[in-house]
């Protein structure tokens, strides 16, 4: 279990209002701090402000798409240690392997239940702590 005293901040980068609200609300209910961005540019800006423990990233985004955000983050020494979980409607196996090769910590395919979303996060954070 996560210690509620040291809340992890999750940055959600997602352009669809409903999906962003869903993910934010579930993670808030699970005790995380949540920051929201509606496009790739805003997402990167928030990530650079620091304090982010994990990024939940949609791939199809306006302005800078999720692939570009992922590449930028993994190529930036300041940001590369933040685990990025891809959350996408692209179900292809190829895309999945590309995303993992580009440094994504996990690849979640939409649709997703509240329970599956909530389960996927602590697992990644534990992995990160071990490294």
């Amino acid at each position: 279990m996560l210690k509620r005293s040291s809340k992890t901040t999750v940055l959600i980068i997602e352009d669809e209002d409903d999906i962003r609200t869903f993910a934010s609300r579930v993670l808030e209910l699970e005790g995380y701090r949540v920051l929201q961005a509606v496009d790739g540019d805003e997402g990167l800006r928030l990530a650079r402000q620091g304090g982010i423990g994990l990024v939940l990233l949609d791939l199809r985004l306006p302005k800078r798409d999720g692939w570009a955000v992922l590449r930028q983050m993994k190529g930036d020494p300041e940001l590369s240690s933040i685990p990025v979980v891809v959350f996408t409607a692209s179900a292809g196996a190829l895309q999945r392997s590309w995303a993992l090769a580009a440094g994504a910590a996990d690849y979640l395919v939409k649709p997703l239940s509240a329970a599956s979303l909530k389960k996927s996060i602590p697992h990644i954070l534990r992995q990160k702590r071990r490294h």
Partner: protein
Amino acid sequence: MEKPLKVLIVEDSEDDTLLVIRELKLGDYTPTFQRVDTAAAMQTALRNQEWDVIVADYNLPSFSALEALRLLKDSGLDLPFIIVSGSITDETAVAAMKAGAHDYIMKDNLKRLVSAIERELHEAEVRRERKHLQRRVVEYEELNTLKSTLLSTVSHELRTPLTTIKGYSTMLLDYDRRLKRNEKQEYLSAIDRATDRMTELVDHLLDMSRLEAGLLKLDKTPTNITALLQTTIAEARLRTPGHKIVLNLPKAVLKLNSDGRRIRQVVDNLINNATKYSKVGSIVTVEAKSQDSELVISVADQGKGIPRENVEKIFDRMFNLEHRLAQDPGGLGLGLALCKALVEAHGGRIWVESELGKGSVFHLALPREAMTEGEAYVEKE
């Protein structure tokens, strides 16, 4: 056994022409022919008639076989081209073959002409067949690409509203007691909207496949277009309160024999695009008027406009599918292709005028076809 043959003869001499014809008759052909000796005459002949073979003299006073070959190439036709000449050097023969001539025959050895024509007709047939097959392969490949692009787009587009439904419903189930009442209401309406989005998607797909199978039937009845537009706009205003939607209608009631449901679908689609691709707070203007023998409906937005090179392609299904995933606003991208098909099914036209940075105006013109007696219109409502 008669073998008809349409021969275009590039030749200045009547006598030599008759020699060629005589040779063809000896070879059991029944030739119909035309003699040309200028570039202009040859172009006209190629444009206006069908030919089986071209027989050309090498040197003419005001024309030559090489020029004739170039004209043939420019016309895009693939016809056997045989040069007949009195004198020949190796250089000219090589030059002619390089330029695309199929054979080169000496005037004093004309009996070779028939066998040369027979061989070249066969070759041309083989080339045509091959081209036809290549075209079919390309078409098939395009269709295949379209199919897989469509599949992945549809899957992606279905997953988005499904995510809303799955996400919110499981959240409502799992966290029921921790959610506030108004919050629950909000999630339930989001689920409701998502199912509408999916229904629209499925309807579009069905319409498109019906159109392709030629199964989409119009249900034409006398339609009050004025009333139809008023209702459509009233609902669009509720849907997108952020935009100012203006409706300009003439005083006289506009009527048309049409499938009102489909016309509405088209106008709805255009208004949705207009609001989707322009800033909140900007104006969308819908206009309708009678113009000559057509009823013209226009939807204008103040959005970012369409690049000139895409203005023609925007109604193309393939184009929209290919560009869809790269663009932000959701949807299947079949909307405009469907609009076009529906307008054309009415015998009408759809087009767009657009200026980058200023906005786009979509027009659809529907023919005010002659009404049958039984549908006499009352011009006042």
